[in-house]
């Protein structure tokens, strides 16, 4: 069995010569912690059965970027809404499709997920004002032109053409014309939604009589739990819960005042910026890497 190994060496050398900046070492596989919705979306999209035990868990999107940016041999994944310029990490194509708003919205980019929301049950908000303001916010977030613009600016993929100006929607929500600075919207759930959600809440605030908000994002699995589930009356109770995926069957949202999807997000695989040889990976390749079958960059494509 000497011949094959010799050939391997030669091919490796060749690759190095042709694409100077390709990583050749063992792949360092980075993944998010197990409560992350991004991880769930990613694993589902690539059809991963079992994650390699050598994977390194990081605790946030930012942490992921930092780690991948500082490690030539790294592979990871992040939200498309991340600002990759100057970050040291580059997003790559999935199944030959460039990740972009268009490809996400038209469905051709496969690795995408919805940002879903769910509110508490009607009548379970403690006060009518609270319920009214939540309803107004949800309307703003999901339907208004202004809301969608903000979400888009913060990286969410939305279809602006289906939106209605807030000035019209507002008529259904007289609550926004009063001083609401004593009301607080408490959110929970996915951390991935944090950026779009924060932007929307901030924009909503001056339009809705200075309503206050507390953003308490901990992970998709808490979104339902804290609004309708077992924790809805606990220390961690929230008014609106979010998940960076669709709510599961066991997460029954039928009793909610409102629930649905407010934008789409794409997960992109990322590699170190110096690893320019890699520009596209298929679901199969990614699954191979993440399951540990493909151990080295040199093994890719064989």
């Amino acid at each position, binding site marked *: 069995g000497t011949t094959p190994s010799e050939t391997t060496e030669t091919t490796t050398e060749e690759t190095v010569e042709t694409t100077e900046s390709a990583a050749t070492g063992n792949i360092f596989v980075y993944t998010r912690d*197990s409560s992350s919705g991004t991880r769930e979306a990613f694993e589902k999209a690539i059809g991963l059965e079992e994650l390699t035990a050598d*994977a390194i868990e990081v605790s946030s999107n930012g942490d992921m970027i930092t780690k991948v940016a500082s490690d030539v041999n790294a592979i990871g994944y992040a939200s498309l809404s991340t600002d990759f310029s100057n970050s040291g990490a580059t997003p790559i194509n999935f199944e030959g499709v460039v990740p972009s708003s268009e490809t996400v919205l038209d469905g051709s980019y496969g690795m995408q997920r919805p940002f879903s929301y769910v509110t508490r049950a009607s009548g379970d908000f403690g006060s009518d004002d609270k319920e009214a303001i939540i309803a107004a916010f949800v309307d703003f977030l999901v339907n208004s032109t202004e809301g969608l613009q903000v979400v888009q600016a913060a990286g969410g993929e939305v279809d602006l053409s289906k939106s209605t100006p807030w000035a019209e929607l507002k008529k259904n929500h007289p609550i926004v014309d009063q001083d609401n600075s004593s009301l607080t919207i408490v959110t929970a759930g996915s951390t991935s939604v944090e950026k779009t959600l924060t932007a929307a809440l901030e924009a909503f605030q001056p339009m809705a009589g200075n309503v206050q908000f507390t953003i308490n994002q901990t992970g998709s*699995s808490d979104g339902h739990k804290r609004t309708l589930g077992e924790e809805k009356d606990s*220390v961690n109770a929230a008014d609106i819960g979010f998940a960076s995926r669709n709510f599961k069957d066991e997460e029954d949202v039928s009793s909610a005042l409102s629930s649905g999807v407010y934008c789409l997000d794409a997960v992109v695989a990322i590699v170190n910026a110096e690893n320019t040889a890699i520009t596209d990976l298929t679901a199969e390749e990614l699954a191979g890497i993440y399951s540990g079958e493909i151990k080295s960059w040199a093994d890719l494509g064989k």
Partner: protein
Amino acid sequence: MLINAEKVKRNKAIDKAARMFFLAMALLSSSFIVILVLFIFMKGISPFLPNYQYGTVNLIDFLFGMTYRQDQKLYGVGFIVINTLISSFAALLISLPISVLTALFIVKIAPKQLSGLMQAVVELLASIPSIVYGVFAAGVLTDFVKWLASLFNVTTAGGSSLLAVILLLAIMIFPTITSMAITAIGAVDRDLEHASLALGATETQTNFKVVLISAKSGIFAGAILGLGRAFGEATAVSMVAGNKLYGPTFSLFDITKTLTSTMLAGLKETTGLDYDIRFSVGIVLLVVIFGSNWLLNLVKQKVGNM
């Protein structure tokens, strides 16, 4: 006559009440340890009980398991304990000699001004919050480790590694051990030094052969304290540990996982098994700390008797 019978009686009552108050407060203070252990134990034991709502974990698997994967519901802290022991003891191994020599320098060798300055340095290091150490480690130590690894042609996970943890802990326990050693060395009877000098030993011989040996029990106490700190350090360590899913980790450049970083890693969960299991890990941490303290104190008594 100055005595006012009524006042005296009142004074006496106050005296008695004060005494009771002081006793009550002392009892309260000391009972916290009992409360603490009791509650954490109660909570931490629940995942192993048969009627646990989120699906029972096997105690043996938990204690001796070599994989900790929440996604697969595998909770084994065996390797984490080993990792914790390795990183803490290695940190101690690095820090102890440096600390002791620094203490010797401060107490016996340095000129007065310099000694005061060095003491201030040690105190300052001792009072730096661990989160600052963490920021420093994540920004500097990881780069150092990456550079070192590149010398050996090893790639690291962005510098997060066992080595980074060890270096970080060594730095963090340095002021603890040093200040204990300063006290111990300062307390060495001047008579002993004089006796040594009168026998024609040089100052340096005296310092190394008599002073250090006489201070050994105090130095040992410092080492125990430092080790305890290394075991319990959480925030800073979790910033450079990486998060290895299985182990134990023996390679310096490989990522690792310690008991404390495990407790902080699942932080975002606030209910369920992943939450409760943290208390179980907490118990294990306490056992590791108290156990090693107890063991080292035994050793210390043996050494101290010599």
